[in-house]
């Protein structure tokens, strides 16, 4: 019988080997697939048990925090946003069942304290629970509030404010707003609002015809390429022929031979249209690209929630320098040119920072639960679209806009302001309900002009008013809030 007993034992060994094989399959080889199964709630439930780090405004105000519910095995954390709708953009939301968006999504790793495999084994050995780190942002509570209130009064739109010398994003407001605290109850409803699109960040995702604000880019290309100097004059009649279309000034006003200052101050279309043709598509597009057009904006938000600015082709692609475009209309911010408020703010910031464009940065440091700084974000240069000299010449021209031109409502008493208005006609814009008198109103600029502390782009859609009427006051209020706050 002994031989059979040994054989029986061998059979048991085989049975147990099968158990080891199946266990290995589930726990290691097929684990990734199993974790992705819809029926598997474990990954989400485990996420809920991690205390996510806080997100703080520059002054330490808590924008997002995690609150514990239940205890023991029932312990879980729920996200709370004490400032409500104020920072719905760009902070976004994070709920286990409803997903994440914007800053909460792009900084998930830091906020959950995600670590390397080695680190987590070490934590297990020492009994440490995974805990998220806090992130301190550059967002300015007061200015964000001013921007939000102004936008709510003005209509759908966005405000982006950047510190030119560092790229610190002080304000990133988008109207219509939403309250992230209400996402668990209302997410479907929020998604269904097709006109207000409250979940959509108009500052970074929304693309609008930039209108005359783009003339600053055209002027930069003209000066940079050597096509003009500040003294060069171009004859600017009431209208010019542009590839068979008529390109006209407001009220068909004939300005005669004028130089850059006068042309920008009064936003003369025929002057800039001709400048665009003079510069040529290659040089204009080169300058645009240096300002960030044609690329995903270098800001720390999820890529799918960012839009590229540029001349947009039929299939939604960004046209490049070889693609046929109506250059004169591009030069005055029309044609199929679209830009995000963030992109226009980057143009203002680059001019303000002597031609050097800093990467826009929402946060500056990550702090762990013991208060140690784990990570620090230093300012970094994105590009140098124009020389300091060109920047200075552009600043002078932009100062004229505010002091005596089309943008006088942006003026701040005692502070020199440089800026540019924009009013792009958007008749039949479905987002506005299809009205015939709808405009996209803009103001972009920086202050103080001689020592810039803040560069801002304000954009309002679906308005019958002009940039100076509706966007310039927002610029002024937000700029004042930031300058006075310091």
């Amino acid at each position: 019988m002994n031989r059979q007993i040994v054989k029986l034992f061998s059979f048991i060994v085989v049975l147990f080997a099968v158990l080891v094989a199946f266990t290995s399959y589930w726990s290691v080889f097929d684990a990734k697939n199993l974790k992705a199964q819809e029926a598997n709630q474990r990954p989400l439930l485990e996420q809920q048990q991690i205390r996510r780090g806080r997100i703080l405004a520059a002054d330490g105000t808590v924008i997002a925090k995690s609150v514990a519910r239940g205890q023991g095995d029932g312990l879980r954390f729920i996200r709370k946003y004490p400032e409500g709708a104020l920072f719905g953009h760009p902070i976004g939301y994070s709920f286990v069942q409803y997903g994440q968006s914007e800053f909460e999504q792009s900084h998930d790793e830091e906020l959950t304290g995600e670590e390397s495999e080695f680190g987590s084994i070490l934590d297990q050995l020492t009994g440490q629970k995974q805990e998220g780190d806090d992130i301190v942002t550059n967002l300015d509570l007061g200015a964000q509030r001013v921007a939000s209130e102004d936008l709510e009064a003005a209509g759908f739109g966005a405000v982006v404010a950047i510190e030119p010398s560092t790229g610190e994003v002080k304000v990133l407001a988008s109207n219509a707003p939403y309250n992230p605290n209400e996402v668990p109850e209302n997410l479907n409803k929020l998604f269904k609002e097709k006109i207000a699109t409250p979940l959509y960040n108009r500052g970074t995702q929304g693309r609008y015809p930039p209108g005359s604000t783009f003339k600053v880019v055209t002027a930069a290309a003209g000066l940079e390429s050597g096509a003009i100097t500040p003294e060069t004059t171009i004859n600017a009649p009431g209208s010019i022929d542009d590839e068979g279309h008529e390109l006209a000034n407001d009220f068909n006003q004939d300005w005669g031979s004028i130089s850059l200052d006068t042309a920008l101050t009064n936003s003369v279309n025929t002057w800039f249209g001709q400048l665009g043709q003079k510069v040529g598509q290659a040089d204009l597009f080169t300058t645009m690209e240096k300002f960030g057009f044609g690329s995903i904006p270098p800001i720390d938000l999820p890529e799918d929630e960012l839009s590229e600015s540029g001349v947009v082709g039929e299939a939604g692609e960004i046209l490049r320098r070889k693609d046929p475009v109506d250059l004169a209309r591009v030069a005055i911010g029309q044609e199929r040119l679209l830009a995000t408020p963030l992109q226009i703010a980057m143009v203002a910031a680059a001019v303000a920072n002597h031609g050097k464009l800093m990467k826009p940065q929402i946060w500056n440091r990550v702090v762990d639960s013991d208060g140690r700084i784990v990570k620090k974000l230093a300012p970094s240069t994105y590009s140098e679209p124009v020389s300091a000299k060109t920047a200075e010449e552009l600043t002078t021209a932009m100062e004229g806009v505010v002091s005596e031109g089309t943008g006088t409502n942006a003026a701040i008493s005692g502070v020199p302001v440089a800026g540019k208005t924009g009013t792009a006609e958007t008749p039949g814009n479905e987002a506005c309900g299809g009205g015939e008198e709808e405009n996209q109103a803009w103001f972009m600029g920086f202050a103080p002009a001689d020592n810039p502390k803040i560069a801002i782009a304000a954009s309002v859609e679906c308005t019958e008013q002009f940039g100076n009427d509706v966007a310039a006051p927002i610029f002024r209020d937000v700029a004042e809030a930031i300058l006075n706050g310091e």
Partner: protein
Amino acid sequence: MRSGTRNRELAALVPVALLLTAGFAAVFAQESSRLGNLSVIYGAYFFAVCLATHIYLRIRLPDADPYLFPLMALLTAFGLVMIYRIDESLARDQANWFVLGLVLFALTIQFLRDYEILERYRYTIAAIGLLILMAPRLPGIGEQVNGAYLGVKVGPLSFQPAEFSKIAIVIFLASYLRENREVLIVGARRILGVTLPPLKHFGPMLVVWGASMFMLVFIRDLGSSLMFFAAFLALLYVATGRFSFVVIGMAMFVVGAWFFATTVPHVHQRVEIWLHPYHDPRGAGYQILQSIFAQADGGLFGKGFGQGLITIPGAHPPAALLPAAQTDTIYSLIVNELGLFGACGVILIYLLIAARGFKVALLANDGFSKLLATGLTAVFSIQAFVIIGGVTRVIPLTGVTLPFVSYGGSSIVANFVLLALLLLVSDRARREAVQPAGRDLALGVT
């Protein structure tokens, strides 16, 4: 030799007690980040109980296998810590049953020193074993769990007869086959190239097959049925050496199981869930899927002791994320928290027990002892396979306990009785190996 054997047992018990202490320390540290001396107290209690058992063995069965008791104590310690981590009060019950199990263990050794006496009562034992199996269907005391009739409840006491009747059936089979193995071998005929057992002696085998089929229909438990029948085949094979008998038996089981799987709704459903768990992930397939998901979450090293999720946090009313974590799916929780490595460790312990158990069978001198040790070891190992295989989707998931680890009084008490019988066989076998005087008792078979 004698004291050497028991000294090895003692030496093996010390790390087991330390492991239990460390396990409790880990659970306490996890729960409240405090390290009191409670874990040391629990460790000391456990060690004291084991020490008492060890001293008893030293007196009563000085030559018995020194590793079986420590290995089973190790599983019990592991189970206690695991259950404690799930629910403190369940662990307290389990600890009481552990002590009760050891008392029955001692009583079995005390009164069955001459375990051949079991042979005399083999039909009585078989009858009792089958009768208690049917008890769960009796009105008033029967208990249905998840569609299977596995429990008996009398007043506050409830127990699972299958745990005890497996021992009764093994005793019967060992005795019956010891007596009839010769005729089964000699009387076999080759028909169409297949060796068939003689019809006359085939009858009792058909009865056993019928009994396991009956269990399938009557108590609707595929797991127990599989466990019993596999033990029967194992014994039949060891007794006769005819692999063809095993093949015939397996074919009969498969045909019968297939027939009932398609006709008995409960059994059919178990098989359907096994094959297509994703058909109803929130209903019928929930337990097996959550069992697999828990393992997927464990990975190589596991989430760490006490870190796994068993219930859905904050659910009202409370809802299980890993249903029956303290019984059926305790292995999945082990994979979840201790990873593939921890799980392999557990399987290794079962394998070592199987190795020691079969060693006892190898050393035994007489046929009954050999077959008894083989049957007990086989049924124990197969029980572990049936439940681990169930939660890892090797076979359909059924409500069998993981011996010594799962929560459950019947299981732990019955398995200690099983261990007692194994040690009784072992003690005699090893003593006779030392004192060859007992040789003439052997039937001289290999």
